[in-house]
């Protein structure tokens, strides 16, 4: 019994971080129809900022988190202006963004590799290697903190989307762009803000990642498929769906890793993706695709 609780606890901790990683991706897809394959590489970028903040100045990664988020959000705005804005009216925009963001991912990886080499890094605040014990259940503090902070950030994001004026505009634009524009929403500005927020969330996730996982520039390839499967499973663009998929799959993956073998745990995400595409292609919370 203790082992089951143990594994579930570890799964929940990781689920929070994956949920945070995925929610930014989902937001950007929902509002902008950008399939952002560069999202995980930007998470790694955020992780490096937190890493150097700790290494050089001894700043705790949890304190670096807002700094990472802001730096990445600004980067997001620049990327959008330089790479995305021109083609936003193209009929094949979503398809083009796949190629475009793939290229950006490689450029980010290359730049990080050139700057910081391909050494494995991990930020090591004291709590990263410490743990609580409840009975025999072992709770690593690093994962616990990362999980809690992720859940808090996602909660804030949800409240922001639900209650703020910009949140209303973002939801409206996601659901019906033309109608939102007709009601006076500046949909281009809303798109830019959502992109900035989405990439800012990648920065925040990066700060947490920096002490939960060891990372190096090419690490993002491991995550891109996992995150994409979370977003597809949740129903493209549904943040709630992405979060639920992240938690449930992380917990399942933790059990698979413990009982069957850790090499199989990533498989969980792809198997789930496969099943979802087979039986519920619109995802858990997605709209049924329309027959045109």
């Amino acid at each position, binding site marked *: 019994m203790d082992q089951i609780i143990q594994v579930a606890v570890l799964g929940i901790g990781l689920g929070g971080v994956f949920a945070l990683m995925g929610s930014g991706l989902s937001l950007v897809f929902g509002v902008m129809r950008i399939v952002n394959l560069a999202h995980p590489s930007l998470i790694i970028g955020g992780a490096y900022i937190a890493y150097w903040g700790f290494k050089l100045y001894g700043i705790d990664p949890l304190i670096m988190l807002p700094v990472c988020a802001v730096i990445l959000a600004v980067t997001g705005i620049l990327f959008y202006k330089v790479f995305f804005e021109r083609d936003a009216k193209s009929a094949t925009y979503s398809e083009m963004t796949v190629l475009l963001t793939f290229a950006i991912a490689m450029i980010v990886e290359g730049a990080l590799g050139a700057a910081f080499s391909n050494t494995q890094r991990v930020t090591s605040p004291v709590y990263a290697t410490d743990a609580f014990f409840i009975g025999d259940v072992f709770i690593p503090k690093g994962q616990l903190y990362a999980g809690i902070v992720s859940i808090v950030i996602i909660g804030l994001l949800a409240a922001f989307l639900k209650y703020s*004026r910009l949140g209303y505009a973002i*939801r*409206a634009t996601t*659901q*019906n762009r033309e109608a*939102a524009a*007709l*009601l*006076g*929403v500046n949909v281009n500005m809303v798109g830019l803000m959502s992109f900035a927020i989405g990439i800012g969330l990648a920065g925040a996730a990066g700060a947490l990642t920096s002490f939960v996982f060891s990372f190096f520039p090419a690490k993002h390839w491991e995550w891109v498929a996992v995150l994409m499967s979370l977003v597809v499973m949740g129903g493209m663009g549904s943040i709630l769906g992405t979060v639920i998929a992240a938690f449930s799959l992380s917990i399942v993956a933790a059990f698979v890793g413990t009982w069957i073998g850790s090499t199989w745990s990533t498989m969980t995400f792809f198997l789930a993706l496969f099943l979802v595409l087979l039986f519920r292609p619109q995802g858990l919370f997605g709209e049924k695709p329309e027959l045109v």
Partner: protein
Amino acid sequence: MSNFLTVKGVTAGYGDGPAILDDAHMTVQKGKVHCIIGPNGAGKSTLMKAIAGMLPLRKGEIEFKGENIAGQRPDQMLRRGIAFVPQERALFPKMTVRENLKMGGYILNNDKALTSRIDEIFDRFPILKERADQHAGTMSGGQQQTLAMARTLILRPEVVMFDEPSLGLAPKIVREMFGIVRMIADTGVTVLLVEQNAVMGLKNADWGVVLDLGRTLFEGPSAEVLADPRIQELYLGGRRAA
């Protein structure tokens, strides 16, 4: 003739495509219900989109209260008091009825005023109050159309334009929709409608505008338009293929 809202020689189309509207005219009188009719592809919806500022005019003027407003953005039209409900899917399906109404007053940017205006809408449309916290996409077609029309009233517009409010609705519900249109007009708001069913549209309107191939054939009091032999010709054949 009235100088409230006048469409003068408007030519417009989508992107670099052919002109859908080619020298369209229309006279709009304050507080009346106007119905735009014409066969498929006549440019009825395009005319509304042109007035709403959704596509640029290649030629012509739209005069509203003595001012040429052609070329303004949809949100600028909205601020001037001209609201538009496009055909189908004008709502945010995963937002509640109340949230949809709040979006209707997005440009007000004043929560207090918005709340009291939403309460006014709830008083006029009790069905919406009943469904206030339900997702718009889960309501019936008639309820959704009611919400779309009611939502324009949040901004207390002078002109509202509804593109085929009867689309896909059962006859009994269509009568209800025309009842709502009349109720809106009775409060002094000017209404423009596009209607596929010419007879039904004209019977529920004060003024008729007949479009064909992007051009205004003629306009006049709806009873006269309805009795005009050219209508028979337009709808019952005799026209060369375009």
